[in-house]
């Protein structure tokens, strides 16, 4: 299997799906001539031309709405938001039009669209450009939300998202674009709504999705050295959430730590925590612990911004808590 970057995996998925289905078009700021702000769409203008690779003005609400309109009529647009921070400008279109149309029309009108772009903090970008919005999108019934953390999952999930008949919010990460991993040649799909056990253990369940996966694996490797074996469950899809996989790992280890890079209040981590407490209460040997971002906007100063986010140290501390290990 070839080792490619997360960025290249996304590009391949886009290219293959555009070749497969002429209804797939790409719209967004700087996607065509500039090859994408983060170069995900590199070269696609040369292959598919300006009719299918559409540069837009900086008008997130407008072009997102136009894309939803095209999807309503049967096209399959992939909207690139330069970052998810700018998607906040477009949220009315996503929540009120894309998410609700199928329901409001009594099942007549579906919206086969993908909204994709980098989510969550990168580095040094300050409060308005460093936001992890998975929980916000997951709040709205009518949307699917996926957040792959490896090139393999990114490619397979993006292809599934494009073929899905309903709106999918596809969360990437600026710092993840250069991550590498094995990806098979040619067509394959990763099913939306299916988690993946990235590491197997029996002592504690570390449940996460998206960019934090890397530090979760690091933490699991640290724990290994101490003889603690963690199950690392990568949800990959935030909504629908793989409930079976969550219950399976918790029933096995009886202890859970949930790692989510967004804020703690009303977030995915707290929802998963509730879900476990509600459905696997008798299996728990300790209260579920959450490792999230601190409950503050992200500051610019690098030391502070790192301190505000989940880290290996914070995960290890939380694991100690659920294992009742007293720290020296």
């Amino acid at each position, binding site marked *: 299997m070839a080792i490619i970057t997360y960025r290249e995996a996304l590009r391949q998925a886009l290219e293959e799906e555009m070749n497969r289905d002429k209804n797939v078009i790409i719209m967004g700021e700087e996607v065509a001539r500039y090859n994408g702000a983060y170069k995900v769409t590199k070269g696609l203008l040369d292959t598919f031309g300006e009719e299918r690779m559409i540069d837009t003005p*900086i008008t997130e609400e407008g072009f997102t709405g136009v894309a939803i309109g095209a999807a309503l009529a049967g096209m399959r647009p992939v909207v690139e938001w330069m970052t998810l921070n700018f998607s906040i400008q477009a949220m009315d279109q996503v929540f009120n039009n894309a998410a609700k149309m199928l329901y409001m029309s009594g099942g007549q009108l579906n919206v086969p669209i993908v909204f994709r772009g980098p989510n969550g903090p990168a580095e*040094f970008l300050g409060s*308005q*450009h460093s936001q992890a919005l998975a929980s916000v999108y997951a709040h709205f019934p009518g949307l699917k939300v996926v957040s792959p953390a490896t090139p393999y999952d990114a490619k397979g999930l993006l292809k599934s998202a494009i073929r899905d008949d309903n709106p999918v919010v596809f969360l990437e990460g600026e710092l993840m674009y250069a991550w590498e991993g094995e990806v098979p040649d040619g067509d394959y799909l990763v099913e939306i709504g299916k988690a993946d056990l990235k590491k197997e253990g029996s002592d504690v369940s570390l449940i996460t999705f998206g960019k934090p996966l890397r530090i979760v694996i690091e933490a699991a490797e640290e724990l290994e050295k101490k003889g603690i074996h963690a199950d690392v469950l990568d949800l990959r899809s935030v909504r629908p959430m793989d409930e079976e996989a969550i219950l399976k790992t918790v029933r096995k280890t009886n202890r859970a730590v949930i790692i989510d890079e967004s804020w703690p209040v009303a977030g995915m981590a707290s929802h998963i925590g509730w879900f476990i407490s509600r459905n696997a209460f008798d299996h728990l040997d300790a209260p579920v612990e959450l490792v999230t971002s601190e409950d503050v906007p992200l500051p610019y100063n*690098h030391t502070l911004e790192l301190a505000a986010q989940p880290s290996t140290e914070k995960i290890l501390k939380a694991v100690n808590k659920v294992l009742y290990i007293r720290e020296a």
Partner: protein
Amino acid sequence: MMKKDIKKYKPEFLKEMLRQMLLIRRFEERAAQAYGLKKIGGFLHLYIGQEAVAVGSIANLDLKTDYVFTAYRDHGHAIACGMDINSLMAELYGKESGCSRGKGGSMHFFDSEKHFMGGNGIVGAHIPLAAGTAMKIKYNKEKGAVLCFFGDGAIHQGSFHETLNLAKIWNLPVVFICENNQYGMGTDFRRVSSVDDFSIMGKSYGIPGKQVNGMDILKVYEEVGEAVKRAKEESTPTLLEIKTYRYKGHSMSDPARYRTKEELEEYKNQDPILILKSILMENDVITEEDFQNLDKMIKEQVKASAVFAEQSPEPELKTLYEDVLV
């Protein structure tokens, strides 16, 4: 170049405008250097080439009563508002002594005392805020006006169009200044706009609009001056499209391959600092030696700001939970 009549201006005023423009340029050159050394991280959007717009516009204001809003390319406006460059450089370095205590960074300079209202990161999203501040001025029957700067990329956002209408129906003392530096990130503004002349957009909302040459600081000063006067005396909004050019990429990661070297050189020949310098020399306001001395002094000042930033302490960890509601 035609000899320009500058008799109506006091020499000190002209020299001050030159000083401010040069300070912005040298400050940003130093910032770019520090970025290369990884003292500064993230986005750094440089204003080099556009100095005449901020300086010429803000020279009309009394910042006790007037206010300034801008977007994320904000260093020039902050300096033109008289903010201390030590606190600005320290902010770029993420230090406690920075103007936003290290929490804002390049895109989020603020100074509530000097009525510099940022430093705003989302394209077009600060435009309504400027109108809101103008509403407060009107409500309290104050004398002030608000300058709202944004780029050519912002002018198609709904927030711009919604705000123009509101500013007109409520007669707010605000001047909307579109700094058209020709490229919204990597996109030539003509590729994404239905019209090439943005100033006509004012007409749709019954607001006077005008195009201004942004490389000529005296033109900028005069046109913005009239708009500010209109805002203060008649409480009417104005839209100005000030044509300018950024010499650098959109941010430090942008090599700006979407434009030609010839185009860049053409604009560098109309450099706003050199234009004012030669006007002042032709009129015997300054000599070449004066200019060199000024430049030397400014370079020293900028160097000192980097030393100040370097030596300032990092914010304490506890500040993470300061200035937030829980």
